[in-house]
């Protein structure tokens, strides 16, 4: 069984986000890039499958700041191979990312055929679409998203995937492999790997690099950001200021006014 995990770096929203001069994109000099949260879950799910069924796990990521760290961490956690696609301009749209990944899967030796391609269900910057259905479309593979549980049948030809629906309902699906699945959450929170193991991976393992091969225009009808601004939430809520005591008193007054106390 061969599992591919597609990974993408995304800005860490815990940090303050700044808009670049020009007002149509984030200022990437000021953001901290981290592995997209659901991609981290996709990797974890792949490693859990490896432990359960035996598999080789390859992490495939697009070049971005901090991506080496994410890939070495993946190796330290138990991935067998890490591949980095280099040569994309900073701030590439998701459609380009998906295209570069699909190309790499087809062209980089050893990546195809894969039995299972996992990636995060959605990243916080997937403005022009989601990676998983895009890759599924490009490779003509089955797709299912919002997966939170995954097991393989004995033959390894079919996966049983659980998808989340609204209201806490879950759907159990049979998916013929190979397939592309968008992982919402792994069955366990992504594991922690000690720094020493990551350092050891940096010393003893390597990241394969593959150039991105894209048509000059990126090959897709892109969406154009005409303006980007930080969310200014104060507009909606009435903000209560003061020390905790006075704020609590004000709020008690409001709740009383609404007949809630």
């Amino acid at each position: 069984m061969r599992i591919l995990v597609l990974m993408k770096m995304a800005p860490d929203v815990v940090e303050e986000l700044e808009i670049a001069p020009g007002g149509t994109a984030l200022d990437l000099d000021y953001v901290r890039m981290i592995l997209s949260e659901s991609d981290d879950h996709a990797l974890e799910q792949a490693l859990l499958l490896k432990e359960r069924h035996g598999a080789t796990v390859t992490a495939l990521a697009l070049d971005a700041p901090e991506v080496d760290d994410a890939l070495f961490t993946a190796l330290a956690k138990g991935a067998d191979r890490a591949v980095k696609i280099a040569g994309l301009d900073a701030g590439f749209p998701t459609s380009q990312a998906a295209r570069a990944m699909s190309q790499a899967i087809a062209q980089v030796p050893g990546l195809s055929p894969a039995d299972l391609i996992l990636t995060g269900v959605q990243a916080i910057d997937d403005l022009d679409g989601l990676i998983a259905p895009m890759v599924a479309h490009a490779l003509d593979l089955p797709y299912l998203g919002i997966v939170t549980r995954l097991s393989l049948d004995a033959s390894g030809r079919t996966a049983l995937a659980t998808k989340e629906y609204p209201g806490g309902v879950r759907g159990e699906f049979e998916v013929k492999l190979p397939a592309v699945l968008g992982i919402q959450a792994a069955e366990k929170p992504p594991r922690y790997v000690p720094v020493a193991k990551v350092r050891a991976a940096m010393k003893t393992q390597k990241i394969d690099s593959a150039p991105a091969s894209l048509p000059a225009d990126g090959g897709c009808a892109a969406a154009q950001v005409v303006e980007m601004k930080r969310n200014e939430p104060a507009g909606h809520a009435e903000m209560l200021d003061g020390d905790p005591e006075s704020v609590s008193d004000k709020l008690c007054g409001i709740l009383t006014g609404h007949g809630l106390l």
Partner: protein
Amino acid sequence: MTSATLILWLLTLAAFGLFGARVFRYVKVLLAARPEKRWDHPWKRLQLVIVNVLGQRRLLEEPVSGAAHLLIFWAFVFYAASFFWNLVHGLFPFLPIPSADEVSWVRAALAAFGVLGLAALAVAAARRYFFPPPRLEKSRDAGIILALIAMVLLSCLAGQWYRASNPAVSRAMWWVHMATVLGFLAYLPYSKHLHLLASPFGVFFASLEPGRVPEASAGAARREDFTWRQLFSGLACAECGRCDRACPAFNSGFALSPKMLMHHMKELVRGEGAGPDGAGLAGLIKREEIWACTSCLACMHRCPVMNEHVPVLVELRRRLLGEGDMDKSLQESLKNLTRYGNSFGAPPRARPKWTQQLDFHIKDARKEPVHYLWFVGDYASFDPRLAPVTCAAARVFRKAGLDFGILYESEQNSGNDVRLAGEEGLYETLRDKNRNVFAKAHYEEIVTTDPHSFHILKHEYMPMNGGQPVLHHTQLLSQMVLSGELPIKHKLRMRVTYHDPCYLGRYNAVFNAPRRVIEALGLKLVEMSQNRTYAYCCGAGGGRIWMEDPPVIIERPATTRIREAATLKDVRTLVVACPKDLVMFQDAIKTMGLEDRLEVKELSELVEQAMG
């Protein structure tokens, strides 16, 4: 050769053979273990032996059993010497020396030690069987040993008694004595009372820096992954239970028993429980035990044979961490520490947010030279409950006229508890980041309000950085009290008690500085019975603050401690000198509903009050 001599030879060879075979096996195991240098500073080590073996200092901390043990020990030493004398005499009858009991002063001494020793044995037996302290087990093994020692003493005394009146009985008693001691010798290495022989070595090879985290390793998964001294702990342990009685995790009902931990080390050395290759270590020591330790060092401070429980647990934690076998909350905290340099998952820019509550600016030590570089620490920086306390410290420093600055968002968690949690690599990363910032700052001394950071800055960072002094703020305040520089306007006149933080007290023996400041403020210090090295940990250390408590525990350590503080007459204030203590004890007071009875104050808050 007479038949008596022949029999003695046979007995001696058998006893020494059995003894040697077993000891050889142990030595082989220890030689296969990880090396650890414990030969340095021989004179210091000898001093340890004089104080703790010959003087039995730690045993005497429990006076009755301690005194009994001291007597038994010395009786045993004397009797062992006389035995070997007798043995040489018996094996080589042609030697022109008198036998031991032919020398009158030896005889007198034997009689005296024999009587005293028997009395002490009676006390020991009474304690063991009628008034056992918690965690002392009434094992068959212990009974056999007590009986054997009694037999050794009795047979010798009886031999003396009948020496003149009935030489035949006396001779028989001599044989009983010699056979018993030889039997004892053969039995000893198979018994848990091997400590008789092992503990002097344990003390000699003790760590000269107790509580120092072991060299970086992948952690202990098998017997060979421990250092030889860690394994030796099992042989030196007498299973007296002093560690359990002192352990906050044990007394709170966590799975950990430091005594059983040492017992497991013994099983490991003997190849019991685990397979011969040390496999099955995981089954021997449960994960719940390993994660329960608060690293408070109380066990090691009480251990008469100077065993090192905390480093052993750190080795075990390293292994669990490598396997990803840890509490989810700890996992989340470590991820945050990796990403943001703090366990709160807060962006680094939020670190100096507390300073916004001040009406003055604190110097940025990265940009301008300062005398004191104040290392604030995570909890004091990020926990909103601590912001007023951290601000109080800042105002005290300012009013005292100190030239100080902080590192703003460049400070990172100091890594002390990360390290105790078994994440050595992350500790190194944090340390290196901090040291890079230190290297660019201009400062003369470091002061910190956090005992955990104090410990690691003092012992790990600064020796690498150029040896700048590291002070805990209580030390700095105490210095100013002594030099008369602390501007105290009015005395506070109330009764308070003080909790010694583990990393200030047991780890660094800073006991007097905070007490001096407390007294200088006009406060009447009423000590809790568990003070100084006996202080009872709040339960937050060693990474415990990041982990969830299991639901089965009896009572959290902080609750136990507050219960103790609350019994003091007319004391309404518990003074602390550690940010973690403050939040732990405030929580405990709240859950116990003692808000009207007791309040927790950080020392800086009281100093500020007294400054007016």
